[in-house]
């Protein structure tokens, strides 16, 4: 009964979404307040109804209601509670419902926090958001109804893909969706601005918190996914350039560019058309990502639920919202005249360079991702584009970005002089020194490590120098440091986070040590100053799996550091094995052990890695997200609305 109510609620919600997109749009162009006023009411009602449906689905999963098809296919009574709940979005139907829930949630948030916006802009933003919701609800109801029943409910379900039964992956999709879908709000703002024919500094200020929120979630989501791949897939890689990973990375790159160009709109009323285009592209790439993951046109390690029919539907949604937006942009972009002129050497130019490099690197990822598809469709050739391509084609742009970042962020707006750069010379020399030192220590090996370290140091020290310059000279420096705006702190934190991630990537790629061998029980292996003893290998049982648990002692200079317990699990319901690596994390390195099959001579295949700076990759991502969060709480976003009213009064 509850399920039918939920299904019915989704239908009502669809009707509301369709009405909520048409009526306020008409109202906004006719300047009819009564028609515009239904937008926020409908937005909140949609959120309520979809929220109810989602809650019903969670109840079905938690209570193992095997009369629902999705529950049969993706759950099992023996599964731990956490994964029963996570199972809701561990499949196509449920994850799509989560997607719609987040869409309506953002619409409701926009309805709540945007009350101070100009009426027509407010109505249009909510109407566009409502149109997106309508499209996705239609998609859910027509092709992927989570409340479909089975005629003969079985006694038990078929379980969830064991690889997904992991805390890291349980929360990875919600974060990623919050990011993807958060970009829909910026998209709605962009379309509304195009319809209004007006983009000004206050528009930039309204859009920025939404972009920041989406970006923070995307950063955390991608970081989590990468961390999961690191410890779960068993060879300790952190990024595979897999189509699905790229699908989440492309919106991240574009939204990073958007974050920066929106600052230029806000502060200098320049780059308006470009910022609107980025807002459209960012959500466009989210849709492309959804298409890639769910249509199955591109095979990848972790794409799930592929179905050509669903792919076609997303393609229509993509064509309508992406194509339509671009068309509207082409027609209306002329309206947005930029005001601020700037010199070649200025903060604006640096931000243009940032945007350029991010957009092009995104383009490279995009071409690399779809190239196999193009090759097969047009040239009838089956080929692959893998990590070696991306490493070569993508990295130079990011290196260039990292090189200009500290320079750009210290430049003044509008027009800079070369003397503004002098503060950075000592930093550059220091970093070059570090490169030289690292290179001398490892002559004959790849330059990647030293260059990466140098860049990372350049970023982090650049941030410190910038803060130092901001507080100026004389007494009271510390006090002035505390009086810096939160946006400045956010910027510094996020940039330092990027530096830390680059430290990690460089360290891990250049100085990882690996050992593969057969070990007998009690045998000890020496690797990079560590010694590892295989103590025991035993078979035991987990809540819903069988496991082979190995115990190894990790020592350094004879001192026992820790016991590592790598596992190989077998999930009987899904008939699938998984591995859990044994990892000892420390500030400067991870020791990573995987124990494999028993060999003919009775020993076990043991693969050991020492991974320098591994943790820095994800810590950097967290710090970046934290920077975004700090920035979001900057005073000017909280007072933006009241300031607008004051300006109006002053004008009168």
């Amino acid at each position, binding site marked *: 009964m509850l399920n039918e109510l939920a299904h019915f609620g989704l239908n009502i919600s669809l009707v509301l979404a369709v009405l909520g997109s048409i009526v306020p749009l008409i109202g906004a162009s006719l300047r009819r307040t009564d028609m515009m006023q239904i937008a926020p009411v409908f937005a909140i009602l949609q959120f309520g109804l979809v929220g109810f449906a989602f809650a019903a689905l969670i109840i079905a999963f938690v209570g193992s209601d095997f009369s629902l098809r999705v529950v049969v296919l993706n759950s099992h009574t023996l599964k731990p509670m956490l994964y029963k709940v996570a199972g809701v979005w561990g499949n196509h139907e449920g994850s799509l419902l989560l997607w719609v829930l987040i869409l309506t949630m953002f619409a409701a948030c926009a309805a709540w926090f945007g009350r101070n916006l100009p009426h027509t802009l407010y109505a249009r933003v909510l109407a566009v958001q409502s149109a997106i919701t309508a499209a996705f609800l239609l998609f859910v109801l027509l092709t992927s109804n989570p409340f479909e029943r089975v005629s003969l409910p079985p006694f038990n379900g078929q379980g969830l893909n064991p690889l997904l039964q992991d805390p890291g992956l349980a929360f990875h999709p919600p974060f990623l969706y919050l990011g993807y879908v958060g970009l829909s709000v910026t998209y709605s703002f962009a379309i509304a601005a195009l319809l209004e024919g007006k983009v000004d500094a206050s528009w930039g200020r309204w859009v920025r918190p939404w972009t920041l929120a989406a970006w923070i979630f995307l950063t955390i989501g991608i970081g989590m996914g990468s961390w999961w791949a690191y410890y779960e*897939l*068993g*060879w300790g*890689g952190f990024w*595979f350039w*897999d*189509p699905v990973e790229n699908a989440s990375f492309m919106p991240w790159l574009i939204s990073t560019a958007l974050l920066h160009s929106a600052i230029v709109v806000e502060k200098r009323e320049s780059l308006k058309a470009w910022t609107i285009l980025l807002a459209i592209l960012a959500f466009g790439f989210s849709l492309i990502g959804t298409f890639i993951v769910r249509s*199955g046109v591109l*095979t*990848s*390690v972790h*794409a*799930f*639920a*592929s179905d050509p029919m669903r792919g076609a539907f997303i393609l229509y949604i993509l064509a309508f919202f992406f194509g339509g937006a671009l068309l509207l942009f082409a027609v209306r972009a002329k309206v947005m005249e930029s005001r601020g*002129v700037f010199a*070649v050497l200025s903060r604006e130019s640096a931000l*243009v360079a940032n945007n*350029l490099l991010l957009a*092009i*690197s995104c*383009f*490279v990822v995009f*071409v*690399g991702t779809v*190239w196999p598809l193009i*090759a097969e469709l047009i*040239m009838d*050739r*089956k*080929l*692959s*584009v*893998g*990590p*070696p*391509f991306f490493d*070569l*084609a*993508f990295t130079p*742009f990011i290196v260039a970005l990292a090189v200009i970042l500290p320079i750009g962020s210290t430049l003044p707006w509008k027009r800079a002089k070369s003397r503004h750069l002098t503060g950075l010379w000592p930093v550059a020399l220091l970093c070059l020194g570090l490169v030289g030192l690292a290179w001398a220590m490892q002559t004959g090996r790849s330059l990647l490590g030293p260059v990466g370290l140098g860049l990372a140091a350049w970023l982090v020290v650049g941030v410190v120098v910038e803060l130092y310059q901001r507080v100026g000279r004389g007494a009271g420096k510390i006090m002035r440091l505390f009086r810096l705006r939160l946006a400045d702190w956010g910027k510094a934190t996020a940039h330092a986070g990027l530096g830390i991630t680059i430290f990690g990537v460089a360290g891990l790629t250049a100085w990882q040590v690996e050992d*593969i*061998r*057969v070990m007998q029980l009690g045998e000890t292996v020496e690797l990079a100053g560590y010694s590892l003893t295989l103590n025991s290998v035993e078979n035991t049982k987990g809540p819903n799996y069988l496991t082979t648990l190995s115990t190894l002692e990790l020592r350094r200079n004879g001192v026992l550091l820790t016991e590592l317990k*790598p596992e*190989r699990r077998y999930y009987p319901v899904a*008939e*699938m*094995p*998984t*591995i859990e*690596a044994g990892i000892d994390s420390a500030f400067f390195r991870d020791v990573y052990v*995987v*124990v*494999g*099959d028993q*060999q003919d001579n009775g020993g076990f*295949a*043991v*693969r050991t890695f020492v991974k320098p700076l591994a943790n820095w990759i994800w810590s950097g991502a967290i710090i970046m997200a934290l920077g975004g969060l700090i920035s979001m709480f900057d005073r000017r976003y909280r007072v933006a609305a009241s300031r607008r009213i004051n300006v109006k009064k002053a004008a009168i």
Partner: protein
Amino acid sequence: MKRSMTIFILCFWGALGSAVEPNELLNDPILETRARVISQALRCTQCRNESIDESNADIAKDLRLLVRRRLVAGDSDTEVVNYVVARYGEYVLLKPNIIGINLVLWLSGPFILLLTLFGLFLLSRKVENCSIAKLTDQEEKKIKDLLLR
């Protein structure tokens, strides 16, 4: 879904967690390093986007052994790769050849960069001209008058 699951199981089954098994390794460390580098750039034909160095599928193991046999027989790195490509097609190359139509793939990034830089250059000149030629003769005169006053 079923098929993808089967592929998944094939790839992760068996020698789980230890894609490269100890008994596959060559005794000569230099040859072994070369073998690892080569296998990281070759794709497992059965799996989804994994190199033979990472994959646990049987075919990947066969390919790893094949690469090592060729290396021991004295092939150069390119010869080994060509040998595998001749038998399994260009699909196995994770790094597409930089020839023919693939040039589009490889050069798209740099090409767009140059294009936009050129565009920005034109734009900046236009903006400069605009801002310079903003004052009309009358305005110039007005300013002069004001200054002389």
